[in-house]
């Protein structure tokens, strides 16, 4: 049975083309179309329903130490309000899911996990809990993402919230008046588009009113999951289940920056720490096509002797760059920006090159207060 978010009826009213994603009936695109939506987010401000993602709270003594066992990042030194992108690790050094963990109190963390991994993650986290810790699902909350250069002014003008002092990768818990009612919001300055913007956790009961209030602003249009994918692809952000998964390590995925020097005791550390020291056989890279065509997930990467040296894990057309891009894994000696390669699409070798990530610079704000 396909699940619905609190905004489902609103998507239908807005003319969305709906489709199944991670067990939810979600908007893929609206009448504006994928390219139009993508460009709107790059130039103005887009509203995404990401309520299918899981929201959980972990509370209790030792919560920071707990996250340092399940992820390779550091949490004990994080100030309340600070958000961290990280991954849940398996014993083999692979990735169970990627997620954002935000410290809300000395012993409290708010976490957003991928929709498709929700049940798996929660079961895993539950199985690892120490007696002092309690995990709570926030299934009664929706999650909206407002992304784009105008996001800050839209929040000010529609909700009367001044977020100008909230740094990137920080969260604030606040109240806003929506439809005449005081509503409790968790607002995080982050996202999946490379734009400045916010993710707003709101009780389901007020989600539609919040979305309507934001959409009433002339700078805001609703954006579907298809443009969300092309936006994140331009930023080189990995998509779980495609670009990162149980058989890819953070070092191979080239997200070693999430690892903390102070954390050497995380699950999988015995495999991942030596990788960081000695290197790995393959690395995640960006790929830019130099000829016409589109290469998607699964396309082989070949060298100039037509030998298979890697594969794409994501790929598509970049509306901002007007060219085809992708990401994938390639043997490490070729993982150098500018390296000429071929991607094989339906038996045809298309000229391409290894590209640094992101493909276009992110426009996110500073992390400093």
């Amino acid at each position, binding site marked *: 049975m396909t699940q619905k978010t609190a905004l489902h009826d609103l998507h239908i009213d807005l003319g969305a083309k709906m489709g199944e994603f991670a067990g939810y009936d979600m908007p893929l695109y609206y009448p504006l179309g994928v390219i139009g939506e*993508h460009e709107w987010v790059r130039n103005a401000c887009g509203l995404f329903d990401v309520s299918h993602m899981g929201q959980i709270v972990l509370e209790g003594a030792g919560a920071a130490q707990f996250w340092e066992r399940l992820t390779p990042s550091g949490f004990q030194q994080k100030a309340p309000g600070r958000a961290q992108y990280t991954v849940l690790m398996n014993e083999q050094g692979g990735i169970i899911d990627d997620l954002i963990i935000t410290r809300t109190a000395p012993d409290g963390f708010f976490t957003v996990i991928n929709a498709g991994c929700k049940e798996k993650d929660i079961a895993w986290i539950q199985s690892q809990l120490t007696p002092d810790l309690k995990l709570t699902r926030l299934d009664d909350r929706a999650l909206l993402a407002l992304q784009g250069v105008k996001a800050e002014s839209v929040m000010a003008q529609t909700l009367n919230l001044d977020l100008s002092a909230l740094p990137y990768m920080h969260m604030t818990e606040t109240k806003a008046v929506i439809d005449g009612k005081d509503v409790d919001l968790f607002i995080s300055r982050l996202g999946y588009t490379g734009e400045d913007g916010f993710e707003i956790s709101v009780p389901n009961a007020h989600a539609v009113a919040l979305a309507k209030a934001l959409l009433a602003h002339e700078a805001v249009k609703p954006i579907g999951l298809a443009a969300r994918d092309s936006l994140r692809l331009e930023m080189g952000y990995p998509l779980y289940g495609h670009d990162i998964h149980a058989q890819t390590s953070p070092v191979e995925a080239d997200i070693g920056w999430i690892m903390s020097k102070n954390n050497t005791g995380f699950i999988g550390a015995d495999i991942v720490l030596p990788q960081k020291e000695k290197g790995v056989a393959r690395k995640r890279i960006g790929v830019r096509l130099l000829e*016409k065509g589109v290469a998607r997930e699964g396309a082989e990467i070949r060298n100039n002797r037509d030998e298979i040296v890697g594969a794409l894990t994501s790929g598509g057309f970049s509306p901002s760059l007007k060219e085809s891009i992708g990401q994938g894994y390639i043997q490490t000696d070729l993982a150098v920006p500018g390296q000429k390669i071929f991607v094989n699409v339906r038996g045809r070798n298309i000229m391409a090159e290894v590209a640094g990530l992101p493909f276009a610079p992110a426009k996110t704000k500073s992390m400093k207060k």
Partner: protein
Amino acid sequence: MGGLKFTQDHECIYVDGDIAWVGITKYAQDALGDLVFVELPEIGKQVKKKEYFAVVESVKTAAEVYSPVDGEVVEANDNMPGDPEMIAKPLKEGGWIAKIKMSDASQLDGLMNEAAYEDYLKTI
């Protein structure tokens, strides 16, 4: 023969003697969304009925275009890879992807006419 013919896979065909002009219907275009590339067949390629001879790439996905008939590709629309939105034009005014010289035109006999295709769309 007169008029266009349609397949259940949303190809549309215009028959000009023993040449079939093949494109995709508006329904298929709408389902694909914004188009970014069309991969054309090579001239002289032998095609078989229900095998793909071209690929239409949209932002979201890649869709194969199937030949409605056995035959040989005699012309491909070279303007289309650089301007995929041409596919929205009427078949005879530039919306065709390729022209196929049919080896057995009777293979088209089972295809739908426009009215039947419209009815078919209501069932899917």
